[in-house]
């Protein structure tokens, strides 16, 4: 089976500051991978490098998405190819309704794939169906994008975008941050509903808690810009007990602490 995402010896960072130092990772269709690690280990940087945020530079190695080098693609080309990033801190954009935004996004991606725009009636039906499945009422579609949304509503809205765009690979960057347990469950259910044999997922999280609800196939520990250990779901439980200390080492160990009590 060929990989959906194949990262080999990736070096990346902000201008002259290296953050990712020789990271390798391979995700197959249908697999859910979790990346855990202490703050500052480069988890969010990895998500930005993969999705093409400006200011982040790739200095070596490769990151192939279905055989295509991501570094050579614009952020929109990556989205059109089927990559999706659920943001840790979703932005508020006053002046554009959620509905208009979703429609613009969906049709931009369809056009990028050489498909026709979705007609208005079909779009409306799809948006309502997907948002109701996430427990969002229709009013949230009419409101301005994320404006006045609670933390949980913003994260749910990210998952709604994912459900509408049906990506091949979804990266969830600390989707659990700022969520109470009920919101976490709703969001996790939304994510689980999107699991499929064709779709890969990369779940970035600091805490084990999210992985109680989204069961990963593979768990990686990231420290100092590298994957330092990989294993099955049991690795997450192990980290819950022992913390990241053994992966951080030196003076950092004390401050890194246990993820459960950080």
């Amino acid at each position, binding site marked *: 089976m060929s990989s959906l995402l194949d990262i080999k010896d990736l070096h990346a960072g902000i201008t002259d500051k290296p953050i990712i130092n020789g990271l390798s990772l391979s995700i197959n269709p249908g697999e859910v991978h979790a990346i855990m690690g202490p703050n500052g280990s480069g988890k969010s940087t990895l998500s930005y490098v993969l*999705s*093409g*945020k*400006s200011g982040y530079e790739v200095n070596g190695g490769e990151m192939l998405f279905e055989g295509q080098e991501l570094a050579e693609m*614009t*952020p*929109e080309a*990556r*989205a*059109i190819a089927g990559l*999706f*990033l659920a*943001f840790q801190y*979703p*932005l508020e*954009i*006053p*002046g*554009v309704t959620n509905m208009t*935004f979703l429609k*613009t*996004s*969906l049709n*931009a*991606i369809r056009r*990028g794939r050489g498909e026709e725009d979705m007609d208005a009636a079909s779009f409306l039906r799809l948006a309502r169906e997907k948002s109701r499945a996430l427990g969002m009422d229709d009013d949230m579609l009419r409101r301005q994008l994320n404006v006045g949304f609670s933390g949980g509503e913003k994260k749910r809205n990210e998952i709604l*975008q994912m459900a509408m*765009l049906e990506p091949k690979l979804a990266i969830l960057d600390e989707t659990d941050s700022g969520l109470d347990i009920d919101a976490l469950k709703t969001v996790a259910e939304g994510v689980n509903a999107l699991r499929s044999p064709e779709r890969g997922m990369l779940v970035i999280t600091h805490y084990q808690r999210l992985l109680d609800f989204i069961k990963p196939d593979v768990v990686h520990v990231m420290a100092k810009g590298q994957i330092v250990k990989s294993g099955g779901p049991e690795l997450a439980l192990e980290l819950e007990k022992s913390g990241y200390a053994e992966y951080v080492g030196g003076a950092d160990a004390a401050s890194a602490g246990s993820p459960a009590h950080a």
Partner: protein
Amino acid sequence: MLDAQAHFEQIRDTLPGDGQARAATLAAAEAVGLPTRRVESWHYTDLARLLKSGETAVVRAVDFSSVEALEAHFENGVLQSEPQADGLQITPFLGTLASPDAPSPDNVMANYNHALAQNGLTAEVSGTLAHPLVIRTSGSEPVHLAHKISLAAGAKAVLVDDHMATGYSNVVFDITLGEGAELTLLRSQQAGHQVGLSHVTLEQDAKYKSVAMISGGTLARHEAHVSLKAAQAHAELHSAVLGHGLSKAATHADFTYVIEHQAADTSSHTSAYNVLDGNARGVFQGKIIVRPDAQRVDAQMQTRAMMLSEGAEMDAKPELEIYADDVVCAHGSAIGELDRDALFFLRSRGLDEASARHLLVAAFLEQVTTHIDDEGLSEIMRGLVDAKINTLLGNFNGGASA
């Protein structure tokens, strides 16, 4: 630049009213001369310099047919069509309005208007106008217009000031709103050099809402004096500027307000959104005055600017003058660039860079358009903004600078 004296001699025979009085007013105005930057209310707008720029390009008229608008069209100052509707009474323009104060550098432009006003709409509204009333100003000759709009108690109207004249114009609006009257004034300026002045008075329970959209022209000076005279009077002034162009062809948009709360339990809400590219300059001067007995006043004032180039400039000067102690007054100002994180977010959702920029600029200005209650009119204004953003998008991408 306009030679006022020569212009007066040229049109003198066509002017209604007392020619002698006009000549005297003009002489007094000329003795004061155009306001310079030393005059505080004109500090950011160098009128003499701005009036040296030539005519601006001819623009397409906004199509208001979808809202079945009534139209009063002034072409080079000559009324082309007179609107007729139930509840609307138009009387012929008989010359100057009420005699202005003696000219001072602060109000001399009103005196020029008083002396040279060649036409204007004198309208009284009783009842509710079923359709918007559009005052369209077109042509290329220098023009002085003086409009007088009165709404009787309980009357309701939507007025549109569609400015597409390509030359110099000095336009005065004198607006009085009787008890419980409601007026929305939608203003669009697409061209020319306009010096605009409006005086608005509101009686008890009256509501005034002005929504302005400046999408072209090299000078758009909109000065408004709003007096809230009795309880529950409410005024809203919202402005959007889509400024562009380089050096002499750049947009200069100046909104200068004096909002005076003369009575208790009155409220005002002001917002200004400026998108500035090239060498465009936005000016916002907003003064809120709360008189001693005007308790429980609620006055809010917000200025926002999105700077798209190094060569653009925004000057924002909010002022509060409060003589009552139980009031809620606030002002805020934020000037920034196009949000890079928002741009990345939109691109990560499949929008190309140009579309993402378009969406962000449109969304920014939508915060003004959203105040237009009439759906038909708000769609028309959105269309105007969208078309303008499309023609400017090349500049947006290049981030044109000085």
